[in-house]
């Protein structure tokens, strides 16, 4: 019989995983749309810049993957995928929920703003194609915080789900 608190803990941690990839994926879609709108406008006049713009359109898409990584890590480390069901305390569940939420929010907001930075970079590229290198830097600056959030999330998940923190249920 699984105590109710463990059920709640497990539910919370999977809800956190859902929020992580849901928010990150939404933000990426939003950010890519912002950059793609700008690129479509430039393409009307300068189709030869497609290759260089493609990088900047794709950049906000990486946050979706960062969210996906956080969600998969939560699912694998807590045994939902590829392992037995784990006993997750209410405290660990709450922690993982907020880790997923925090990561999702960081990815969501950074993806949107990275889309705007990409759009600005695309405008620069349209006027000065030789400045392609600097134009890619603008969105890369924004992504720094998505990367840092991902790293913190990975560390949290890995250390929160060490065997000492979680107890395996007898199979």
């Amino acid at each position, binding site marked *: 019989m699984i105590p109710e608190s463990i059920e709640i803990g497990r539910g919370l941690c999977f809800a956190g995983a859902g929020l992580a990839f849901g928010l990150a994926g939404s933000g990426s879609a939003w950010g890519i749309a912002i950059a793609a709108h700008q690129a479509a406008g430039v393409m009307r006049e300068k189709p030869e810049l*497609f290759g260089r713009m493609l990088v900047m359109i794709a*950049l906000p898409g990486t946050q979706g*993957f960062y969210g996906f990584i956080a969600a998969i890590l939560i699912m*694998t480390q807590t045994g939902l995928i590829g392992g037995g069901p784990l006993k997750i305390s209410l405290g660990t569940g709450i922690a993982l929920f907020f880790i997923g939420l925090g990561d999702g929010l960081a990815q969501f907001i950074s993806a949107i703003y990275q889309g705007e930075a990409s759009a600005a970079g695309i405008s620069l590229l349209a006027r000065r194609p030789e400045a392609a290198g600097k134009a890619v*830097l603008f969105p890369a600056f924004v992504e720094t915080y998505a990367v*840092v959030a991902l790293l913190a999330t990975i560390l949290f998940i*890995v250390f929160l789900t060490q065997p000492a923190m979680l107890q395996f249920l007898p199979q």
Partner: protein
Amino acid sequence: MAIEPIQKVTLISPRDSHERLMRTINRLGVMQVTDLKDIQESGEPLLRSCDTRTEGVDEKIQQIDFILNLVNLLSPEKQSFIQGLAPVPLVTSPQEIQSVLDKFDLKQTFMNASDLDEKYRSAERVISEIENEMKELDPLSDLPFNMADFRSTTKTRLLLGTLPRKSLGLLGEGTELWNRVAWEEIEPGVTQKPITAISREPAPSPRTGGERVRIVTAFLAEDSEGVRKDLASVGFDEIQLPELSVKVSERIDELRSDLAAYKQKVDDVVDRVKSLAQGHRVGEGRRSLLILRAYWENMKNTRLASAKGAEGKWVHVIGGYIRKKDVERFLVTMSEEFPDSEATIQDPGPDDDVPVSITVPNLFRPIQLLVEMFGLPPYKSFDPTPFMQVNFYLFFGICFSDVCYGLMLTALGGYLAAKTRPFQGLNNFSRILLYGGMSSILFGALTGSWFGDLYKPDYLGKDNFFLHLQGMFVVIDPMDKTVVALLCALAIGICNQFFGIILKMYGALRNRDFMGAFSDGVCWIVTLAGVLMMVGKMFIDIPAVLFNTGFWLFIAGAVGLVLTQGRDFKSPFARLAGGLVSLYGIMGSYGITAFIGDTLSYCRLLALGLTTSIVAMSFNLMAGMLREVPYVGFILFLIVLMVGHAFNFCISVLGAFVHSMRLIFVEFFGRFYEGGSRPFQPLGFDSPACIVKRSGEPIFSKGK
């Protein structure tokens, strides 16, 4: 492997030969012509600015652009996705250019193109008008009567229009006026009926959208105002009937026939434009146009370059820059072809804005692309390309650390490098992928990532070959030892920061700025080394002597920084305050906060490396689950693996390239490098759109 020495050249020639001289300079392609500001601003009375005319050339370029626009509109060139991603310049030869100039009749082609354009536009205009009319007539196509018969008489009026179906029952309810009005719903496809036949429960009318129905009303002219008012009150919209003498359906048939005829005209124009684009062989016409455009653009540039000089009554003077290695060839050509001209070669002065050309051995050339993207170094500075050969590929390899992805990237990079040999920009990029792929193989093997964890027995069975290889090479698994891997990433960052400071010192020593080398180099290295020794105590148990050494190093370095960083201020107090503030990192060349921030930024190496592996593992996991499906499980397993890994490969390459570039541009270049110098661009034919290959000379374009 350096910034090429550049010399300043001034060329004086007789006025009557200066056009030929400019053509020769263009042919040689070794001299960048610049404004003769010195002479123009000196107020020299015997020399004045050149007056050049480019109207004739501009007209030719406009004609070619007009033809090319028409060709691209009606007969666009089919390009593969890869060609669309990276357009390459057209490669031609002097013989082909001459042949095109001799054979291509631009004037006649332009007249033909203008004629075709006029025909196309007028046909398109008529087609648009016909389609609009058909669109307007379409809702009326089932009207059963001749339009000529539908007209009001002196005493009566007819109205056709639509109103909401629910309003039908309200028409003329209880009014005497409506006893003198006849109306009827016109149902789609209904043949003629007596107009007095009133249907109070009309059938649904799909042609009117279900919501609104068409009705025709007949009333006396004297009742017109009242009827119209009543109709308006129930939402009646009058349909303005076209002035036709035939049925609407008959008019639509006429329009259809006209439309087909005009579309045929457009097709004829398109066929003629296609043959214009094709020429005698496939694509020859378009190619000739592109070559002609490049030729006339080059002519224009030559004339504009000529105008940058100055002229007197008898002489023409131009100035510019030339690479030292080309000086001899340039002077020999000038003395042979223009014995009356005089060329002066001198070293550039300290205030000259010298254009920069960098040269590196072929092996190191790919990284030159990054330097060009960021901006070239100042002429008196040094080329950073040789110092980025290890760290960029190191970063790329760690971010993209997977043996199998690395193999795929190496193969892709090698293939692209072989295919893009004539195009320097693309070739450099391809070779970055090639070398980056090799680095990824190395770091993938060290971190034990082979398509993520595909080597595991769960996927490929026990004792599989990959499992054996993985175990043989793996040194650290970042998933197991995340903190150790993070510390490794930060250690790489610290090394790279120190490397940047050493390069700053090197730059200062080159310029004989010994104080700068001491203050911005030695002092920072001593201070930061001391800080690291002290901080190390927080993580590992270091001997007290090491900690104390670190402490004194920090004190010594900090004192040196406080005393020297504010050296640009005059007041002693301001110097001291400036030094203290610089130590923190608000101003000056560096700062402890900047060091910490920059070093922490290298944690992205771990994050991106983990991203590559974890996403790969996720696809393996998904594929592994599908293998349990009966009969088709193994096929599904393979499909998910292939699609998933191809996707992860693309997204991870992008991340690895962009973030490695960022670490170089921001964290590394920030320590010592300032770009932004203008590139050396000699006057010549080559452009991003077209390059010329001379016999016996390998083609190597700077175009992307």
